């Protein structure tokens, strides 16, 4: 065949095997791992973690690596954790089963879960996806040999996607030291019989919103415990459970971590709660204030926080432990910038004025806009931050508009400005564009005067296409649900919490089996398939992705007292 390995015609199989055996024998003798390096254990873990997660050697350079024989790769772009993931329990992606790399699993015999690709299929996928099915336990020596030469203790050759790493004994010892230590004991708050969870509620939250959060959470816990009771009954009558069943049912409890007073005091309160009764993860949570103190606490404690109800999340590309629904107000600002960037008639000569109410919400909207506007390589816009009192004043805003003569006006203010919009718009040229936030205006967005509705663009980060499912976010009622003006200002606390508990969190917990590690839970949740949910057009995931919904419409209002929401953009604006 024309494209077969041409080299196989030159080197006979027998000769090559003999050479290979000699090389492997030599390799094994060279690959002996010396006793642990002369470093404190904490330093071994720090350096080993950097090798594992970032592909950086203790010397600071990239780990050398090869795949598919001769493809040299840069480990800083493609590290161990790319495939084996942060928790080290492996992954299933693109048809390839990547096995665990934590010491607890490595030093035991292993049989991987079955894969669809174990059988031949028409597309021939098995050819590349084939991985080792079963292997004996590793020793430190055979583990070093595996990483260097791509063969397990039984001599089985790894799949081509596994790089080969020519590491020195010292570097290898550090990496193995890390592998031996991580994901070795269950994370706090988890045991074979129980998961302990908490939720966080700050004291600025209304009783209604608090109740809206707690009802689905408590229902989730009750259902888990009810399922456990049914399972125990099942066992009592002599039925033998499957392996899946043995791990799927466990007791669950929910603590409520009430945060009182100034946000500066929250870290201390959170630490006290966590010390008194550690939990495996924080389920949801709610606050009208900046989520940062809770976010930072969870990062420091490596404690998962799953889908809190907040419109003021921390925007970070590297933070790991909090999953958010989206970027909140910042996402509305970003979408506005991307939409505006696509307006063809917008020349650099047209002045853009950004009026920002001096509040966390106003600042989040402006920060989102500015960041995205900068990414489009646009010149900075004129930004003026005004207090609520200045915005209420009849003359202040009028004077600023007269002075700056904007062709585009971004109004990141609350709904107090809505009645003033008709008068304000008269000061602007007929061609001027106005932008507001549905999140900030809330229910009063629909009070925008009809005569202005064709001029005012509104950021709206929720679903607009019909959703087939039940009102609380489940899938049990097949009735198309269409969002209208009544959804403006709705925080969707029940539906969003229900969606994520049922679909993302429960699925993650059920797939943990006996790997009760917080990082593993996040890995599972990160690598799940996209979800179609009630409140957003699409949730998408991926390692490191922490804002599940990436979309935000720019809409206008239709006519009438209960106006239709008219999309003027795609869900995801590029």
């Amino acid at each position, binding site marked *: 065949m024309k494209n077969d390995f041409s080299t*196989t015609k030159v080197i006979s199989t027998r000769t090559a095997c003999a050479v290979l055996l000699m090389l492997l024998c030599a390799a094994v003798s060279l690959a002996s791992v010396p006793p642990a390096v002369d470093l404190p254990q904490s330093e071994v873990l720090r350096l080993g973690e950097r090798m594992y997660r970032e592909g950086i050697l203790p010397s600071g350079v990239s780990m050398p690596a090869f795949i598919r024989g001769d493809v040299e790769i840069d480990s800083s772009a493609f590290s161990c954790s790319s495939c084996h993931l942060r928790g080290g329990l492996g992954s299933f992606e693109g048809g390839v089963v990547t096995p665990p790399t934590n010491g607890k699993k490595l030093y035991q015999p292993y049989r991987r879960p079955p894969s669809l690709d174990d059988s031949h299929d028409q597309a021939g996928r098995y050819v590349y996806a084939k991985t080792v099915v079963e292997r004996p336990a590793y020793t430190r020596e055979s583990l070093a040999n595996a990483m260097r030469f791509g063969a397990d203790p039984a001599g089985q050759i790894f799949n081509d996607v596994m790089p*080969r790493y020519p590491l020195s004994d010292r570097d290898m010892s550090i990496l193995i030291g890390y592998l031996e230590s991580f994901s070795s004991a269950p994370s706090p708050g988890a045991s074979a019989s129980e998961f302990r969870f908490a939720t966080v509620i700050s004291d600025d939250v209304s009783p209604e919103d608090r109740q809206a959060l707690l009802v689905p959470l408590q229902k989730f816990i009750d259902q888990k415990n009810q399922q456990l009771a049914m399972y125990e009954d099942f066992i009592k009558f002599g039925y033998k459970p499957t392996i899946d069943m043995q791990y799927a049912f466990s007791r669950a409890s929910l603590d409520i971590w009430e945060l009182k007073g100034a946000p500066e005091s929250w870290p201390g309160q959170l630490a006290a709660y966590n010390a008194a009764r550690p939990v495996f993860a924080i389920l949801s949570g709610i606050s009208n204030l900046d989520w940062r103190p809770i976010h930072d606490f969870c990062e420091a404690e490596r404690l998962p926080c799953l889908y809190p109800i907040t419109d003021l999340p921390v925007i970070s590309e590297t933070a790991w432990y909090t999953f958010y629904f989206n970027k909140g107000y910042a996402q509305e600002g970003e979408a506005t910038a991307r939409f505006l960037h696509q307006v063809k008639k917008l020349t650099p000569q047209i002045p853009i004025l950004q009026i920002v109410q001096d509040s966390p919400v106003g600042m989040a909207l402006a920060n989102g806009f500015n960041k995205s506007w900068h990414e489009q390589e646009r010149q900075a816009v004129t930004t003026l931050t005004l207090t609520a009192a200045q915005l209420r004043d009849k003359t202040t805003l009028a004077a600023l508009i007269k002075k700056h003569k904007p062709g585009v006006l971004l109004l990141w203010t609350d709904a107090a400005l809505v009645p003033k919009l008709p008068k304000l718009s008269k000061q602007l040229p007929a061609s001027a564009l106005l932008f507001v936030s549905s999140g900030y205006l809330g229910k009063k967005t629909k009070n925008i005067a009809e005569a202005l509705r064709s001029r005012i663009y509104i950021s709206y980060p929720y679903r607009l296409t019909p959703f087939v499912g039940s009102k609380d976010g489940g899938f049990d009622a097949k009735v198309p649900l269409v969002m209208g003006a009544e959804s403006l200002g709705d925080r969707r606390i029940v539906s969003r919490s229900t969606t994520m508990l049922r679909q993302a969190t429960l699925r993650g917990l059920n797939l943990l089996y006996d790997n009760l590690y917080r990082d593993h839970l996040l890995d599972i949740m990160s690598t799940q398939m996209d979800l179609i949910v009630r409140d957003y057009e699409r949730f998408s995931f991926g390692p490191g992705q922490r804002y599940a919904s990436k979309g935000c419409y720019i809409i206008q209002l239709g006519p009438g007292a209960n106006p239709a929401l008219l999309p003027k953009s795609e869900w995801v604006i590029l």
Partner: protein
Amino acid sequence: MKSLLKLCLLSLLVALVAVILPITSHAGESKKYKRSVEKYTIPDVVLTNQDGKKVQLDTLLQGDTPVVVDFIYGTCTTICPVLSAGFINLQSKVTAANQTVRLVSITIDPENDTPKVLKEYLKRYRAKAGWEFLTGSREDITRVMKAFNAYIPDKMSHYPLNMIRSPKDGTWVRLFGIMSSREFLEEYQNVALKK
């Protein structure tokens, strides 16, 4: 000095074993990727590249030099890094011979892969000029995947696929699986030298 020598020997062994293992473990088997020649009709879509510039896809894929296309995404764990390592190795080898190679990656995660994400991905792989990474609306990306007979409903179930367009007759060599850089270069040169 002794440990340095040992490390050098190890590196040499890894390189040798890396070359020999694919030969020995698959001698007698067919090659580890599947090759076919296909005809594709490129849909009339405008995508966005890593610089935020709009790109007419069918125009981009034409020209008098081969173009290589794959489907990847920015936060992919297993398959995409391998495909991208193949791209960067091919780019290095072809440009070292004073030729230009045109590489086009198309994201299958358009929600997350903004031009900024695409640009950072290329930077992470130290891509040189000539490697374009494109995103677009989900509808357009789906049309493109279907046009290349590469549609998958969810990015987690994707597979390694490279396609090389012949400038001679517009046909595509479809390569399913993971190639060594030697195999990839050979396939590329076969297309480039096609008469």
